[in-house]
């Protein structure tokens, strides 16, 4: 089942929303194919839905950072990958991963997130007030999509919102494929020392927030561990949701019939959010895993040490799983997509993200019945060159 020539992965999407045609063609041949990683490593690319689930649920595939290879050319990661520091749990396996995750999951249960709904709705209404103050046209990405998750995660973690310009900038540089290794190292160091300072201050004087809870809690976490966790939660907590809100709005404005259906029946929002997560799959190059031993997947032998990259965007468009997968259909039944990943590393903040997305889209459409793009769609800058897909800016009028 090996392709004649291993493909190299690209993050440039087609027609705003579609995975590259090359990757779709690969999936037609086999759900797993040879892929050349950016450092020359010959690994695998998974494009099929059930294969993606199988790999991500299999503990013979490791998430450890030092075992991986970079899937896309990126100046900053071409050096040998270092082992993840303590607390950077997305790059740990069991038992370290579970130890950290168990300390956090209680904060992100379905019930706890529901309790936050009214507070999140107030934040959203205030952002809409702010957009009205600015007046039409305004940049929906900055004033709405980015502001909501930033306000939510800073308040939950106990990070001062006033410091957002700093951590937004560092996170953007860190996420950019084009940034030089010097810039990425500097941004990583700068954000790390900012959060380390915050952790020290909270250890001296704990507040009523998640980071203080981790510091004083039963996990006996070190400052280094809490700093790494803060890094993950702060970056993952604002960047992904901001881009999903921004790109979802752009996608709806580009699919007027879907937008009209949602406006006509706001109770469709739950399914609409799941479908937008599936259709947009904003994580460009999905999770990578390293085989700890020889593993046979769908008749293909993945040898110990080989790295497998999952294209969540391709898996979420698998015609064996979805009818008319290339269509955005907000009435689609039970999307059960892989946008949040799968397996023990599946997104910790997914229930929080769902509330921000549902409440955000609902309030936005209610407030601005005449919402439209203020520039031609082709002029909306798209994040092909960042770890997470989305819009750079979204000028809208109403």
């Amino acid at each position, binding site marked *: 089942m090996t392709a004649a020539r291993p493909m190299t992965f690209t993050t440039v999407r087609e027609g705003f929303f579609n995975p590259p045609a090359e990757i779709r063609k690969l999936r037609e041949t086999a759900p797993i194919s040879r892929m050349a990683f950016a450092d020359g490593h010959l690994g695998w690319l998974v494009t099929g839905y059930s294969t993606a689930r199988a790999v991500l649920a299999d503990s013979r595939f490791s998430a450890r950072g030092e075992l991986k290879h970079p899937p896309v050319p990126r100046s900053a990661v071409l050096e040998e990958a270092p082992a993840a520091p303590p607390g950077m749990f997305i790059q740990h396996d069991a038992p370290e991963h579970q130890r950290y995750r168990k300390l956090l*999951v209680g904060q992100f*249960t379905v019930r706890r997130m529901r309790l936050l709904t009214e507070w999140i709705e107030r934040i959203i209404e205030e952002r809409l007030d702010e957009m009205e103050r600015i007046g039409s046209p305004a940049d929906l990405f900055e004033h709405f999509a980015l502001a909501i998750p930033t306000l939510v995660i800073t308040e939950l973690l106990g990070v001062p919102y006033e410091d957002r310009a700093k951590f937004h900038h560092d996170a953007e540089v860190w996420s950019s494929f084009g940034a030089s290794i010097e810039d990425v190292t500097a941004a990583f160091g700068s954000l790390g020392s900012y959060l380390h300072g915050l952790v020290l201050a909270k250890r001296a004087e704990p507040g009523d927030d998640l980071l203080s809870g981790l510091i004083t809690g039963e996990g006996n976490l070190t400052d280094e561990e809490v700093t790494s966790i803060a890094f993950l939660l702060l970056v993952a907590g604002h960047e992904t949701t901001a881009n999903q809100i921004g790109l979802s709005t752009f996608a709806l404005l580009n699919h007027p019939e879907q937008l009209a259906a949602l406006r006509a029946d706001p109770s469709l929002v739950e399914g609409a959010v799941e479908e937008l997560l599936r259709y947009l799959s904003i994580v460009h190059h999905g999770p990578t895993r390293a085989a700890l031993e020889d593993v046979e997947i769908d008749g293909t032998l993945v040898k110990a040490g080989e790295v497998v990259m999952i294209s969540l965007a391709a898996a979420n468009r698998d015609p064996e799983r979805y009818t008319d997968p290339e269509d955005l259909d907000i009435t689609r039944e039970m999307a059960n997509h892989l946008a949040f990943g799968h397996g023990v590393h599946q997104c910790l903040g997914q229930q929080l993200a769902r509330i921000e997305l549902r409440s955000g889209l609902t309030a936005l459409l209610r407030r601005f019945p005449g919402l439209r793009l203020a520039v031609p769609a082709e002029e909306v800058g798209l994040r092909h060159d960042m770890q997470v897909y989305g819009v750079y800016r979204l000028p809208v009028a109403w």
Partner: protein
Amino acid sequence: MRIEISEELCCSAGMCTLTAPEVFDQDDADGTVVLLDPEPPAALHPAVREAAHRCPCTAITVHENG
């Protein structure tokens, strides 16, 4: 139908609680799955099957014939 859960495998994603809230809950402290009804009525079976499928950690086993 009889349901088995593994607290060890559970990674507290909350998908079961969202999909079949009559059958699954989450522990308040660490989010671990709590089985409310190990032998749910037939009306809930489709939701339970969906919950087992959506569980990212394969922590839910459904025995169709009890």
